[in-house]
């Protein structure tokens, strides 16, 4: 029971504002889409052979990608879990988090540098007499998806393996279990619980994946619905098809979300790796195998980065960096990143504050969760779909290309919101739960509460949230792809253009620059939030 009357604290205000913004930003475009759809029959899309194939391919590549990512993660997680002590282990596991922070396009460039037509792999296999391996098409898409998602799956699985009670490991030894029995009775049951949730998560990510399919898809044979929407708008200016596909995609995403909710595993994103209590693991007879697996997996994850750096060191680099377009794009990118990150974090905090008030003071947990879930709206309305809606909404009132940057900022802030919510939920709840009665009895609320109680406790994760959302926005292509032009250049767009015209050296320099910008943004924002009082106490990545 609240001790003080809640009329004095407008706890509902931040959440309400955030919700209104969310509804406007997604509801209006959605309405524009549906409105246009009345002239269009979305079901017509299914009668078209090509689009049927596109839809099938979207599912097909997502299933394969998810299966490969999870399937490959199992032996890697197992190997890493069995080898608890080796030099560089912590660094390696942190390396696996990198794929969350690296801009998609940068990684794609690295992948092309290693696996592409003129890449390292083909140089080696070429001299051995094999046919060149083509990265464009399904194979490239799979490689890229596995590159991004296998590390995520690995981290989640390692965590579940680490959570196995020590007693079980000791029993395994005492009962004389060999490697296979250990896997069967100890490791697999622990991993099995996470597998379905992981599969669903990665499936959804790959199903809505845009940048990877756009760059590595390589033609009509390897196109997904998201890319098809983009092409309908940018190639044919066929609004009808674009809207039809957008609606089809919407329906699929909603269905996916519902199915995922059924398998609701709070599968962690893999942040905050907890070390197990005891370092005890049974001696394995297959240590060479573990070593091999770890080495191969680590090479796979790190080679593209290495490839990028090596390619970026070339004579064209300085010229590229100083090119007017590059400078323009860099400035735009930083602006987008900072503003989108700011909006995202402010909205997220708004939602969380109101939600937490409802959960703690009124005990209505479900309602509070719903308010928070609203922040995940982008999972239902992917960027390209949202962009199409925005275009429909605004094209009669404004020149979409002039406001391209603004639109990109809006879309990117929505894209970062789920991450912000995930990161800040725990800390904000904790800050409140610990001191709720005290806060009420002292009558602290509103801005003072934020300033005195929440901010100091939430500061570090907030810095992290800002850093992640800024990096995401800086490296994103899907928001700018629809409306980007020479007038509204961002580094990802520039990189995409340079890669697309096979201007390899220029692309390498651009990719390295984009990576550097992201890194600087990430570190600077975190350092800023941690503040001058906490010198030397920066959050771990």
């Amino acid at each position, binding site marked *: 029971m609240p001790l003080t009357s809640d009329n004095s604290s407008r706890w509902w205000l931040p959440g309400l504002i955030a919700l209104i913004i969310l509804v406007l930003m997604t509801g209006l475009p959605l309405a524009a889409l549906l409105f246009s759809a009345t002239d269009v029959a979305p079901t017509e899309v299914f009668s078209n052979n090509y689009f049927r194939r596109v839809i099938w391919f979207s599912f097909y590549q997502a299933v394969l990608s998810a299966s490969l990512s999870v399937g490959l993660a199992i032996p890697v997680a197992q190997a890493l879990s069995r080898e608890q002590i080796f030099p560089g282990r912590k660094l390696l596991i942190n390396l696996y988090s990198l794929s969350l922070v690296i801009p998609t396009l940068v990684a794609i460039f690295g992948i092309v540098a290693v696996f592409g037509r003129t890449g390292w792999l083909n140089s080696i296999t070429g001299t051995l007499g094999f046919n060149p391996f083509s990265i464009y098409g399904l194979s490239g898409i799979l490689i890229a998806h596995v590159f991004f998602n296998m590390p995520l799956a690995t981290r989640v699985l390692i965590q579940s393996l680490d959570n196995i*009670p*020590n*007693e*079980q490991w*000791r*029993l395994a*030894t*005492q*009962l*004389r*279990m*060999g490697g*296979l*029995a250990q896997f069967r*009775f*100890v490791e697999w*049951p622990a991993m099995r619980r996470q597998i379905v949730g992981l599969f669903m998560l990665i499936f959804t990510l790959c199903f809505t994946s845009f940048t990877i399919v756009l760059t590595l898809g390589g033609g009509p044979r390897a196109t997904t619905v998201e890319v098809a929407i983009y092409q309908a708008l940018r190639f044919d200016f066929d609004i009808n098809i674009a809207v039809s596909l957008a609606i089809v995609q919407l329906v699929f995403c909603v269905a996916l979300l519902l199915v995922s909710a059924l398998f609701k595993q709070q599968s962690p994103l893999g942040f905050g790796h907890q070390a197990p209590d005891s370092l*005890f693991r*049974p*001696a394995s007879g297959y240590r060479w195998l573990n070593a091999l697996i770890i080495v191969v997996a680590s090479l796979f994850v790190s080679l593209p980065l290495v490839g990028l750096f090596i390619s970026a060191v070339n004579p064209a680099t300085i010229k590229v960096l100083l090119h007017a377009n590059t400078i323009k794009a860099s400035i735009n990118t930083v602006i987008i990143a900072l503003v989108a990150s700011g909006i995202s974090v402010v909205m997220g905090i708004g939602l969380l504050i109101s939600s937490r008030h409802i959960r703690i003071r009124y005990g209505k947990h479900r309602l509070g969760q719903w308010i928070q879930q609203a922040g995940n709206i982008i999972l239902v309305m992917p960027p390209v779909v949202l962009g199409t809606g925005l275009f429909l909404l605004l094209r009669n009132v404004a020149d979409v290309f002039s406001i391209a940057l603004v639109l990109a900022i809006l879309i990117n802030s929505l894209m970062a919101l789920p991450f912000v919510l995930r990161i800040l939920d725990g800390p904000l709840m904790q800050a409140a739960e610990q001191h709720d009665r005290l806060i009420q009895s002292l009558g602290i609320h509103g801005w003072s509460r934020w300033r005195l109680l929440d901010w100091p406790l939430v500061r570090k994760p907030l810095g992290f949230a800002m850093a992640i959302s800024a990096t995401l926005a800086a490296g994103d292509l899907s928001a700018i792809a629809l409306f980007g032009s020479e007038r509204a250049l961002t580094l990802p767009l520039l990189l995409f253009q340079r890669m697309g015209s096979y201007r390899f050296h220029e692309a390498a320099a651009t990719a390295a620059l984009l990576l550097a910008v992201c890194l600087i943004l990430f570190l600077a924002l975190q350092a800023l939030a941690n503040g001058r009082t906490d010198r030397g106490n920066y959050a771990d990545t």
Partner: protein
Amino acid sequence: MLTLENLSLKLGSNHYSFNLQANTHRVSAILGKSGSGKSTLLNLIAGFLSADSGTLQWQENSLLKMPANQRPVTTLFQQHNLFTHLTVEQNIGLGISPDLNLTTRDEKNIKSVLEEVGLDGYAKNNAHKLSGGEQQRVALARCLMRKQPILLLDEPFSALDESTRYEMIELTRKVIDQHTLCVVLVTHNKDDARMLNALEYKLTGGELLINTPRNILEL
């Protein structure tokens, strides 16, 4: 006879040195506060930890060089003794064959050991459906199945509620009497030791003091 002579280990900033003589006639109970190194002692005996120096002998044979999976030791933990996704029968069966290749004779043996621990007919039950006390009984059954001469009990009753605890201690006493085992019990509860008519040892400052029951200091 299980003999530990100056069995020493440095773990982090803690130094341990153990002297112990345990035989099959009486249970040796190690009492001490949490964090005093009780589990470390058992881990050393079982082979989960390697000692820095000292001797560890069973029937005049040194166990020190033996890896954990070859020592004639079986451990009963406080919890997490069972693999919850397996059945009772399978859990016990792991004591016979780590790959669960069980013959019909094995199944018969499992049945009889279940009777012994008072869980007649539980063979096909899922382990995760059992209560805490029932799980410990199954674990005990598996220990018996393994037919190892040394039985290490790592606070096996601490997670049980009062009445279940008494039942469990009774059962343990019966089983120990029937199977001539060399038992080392670790617990923070004096009653457990007394009910098992154990020889009590106190573990302080990383050292195990050999004491007769009359010299036990109050905890």
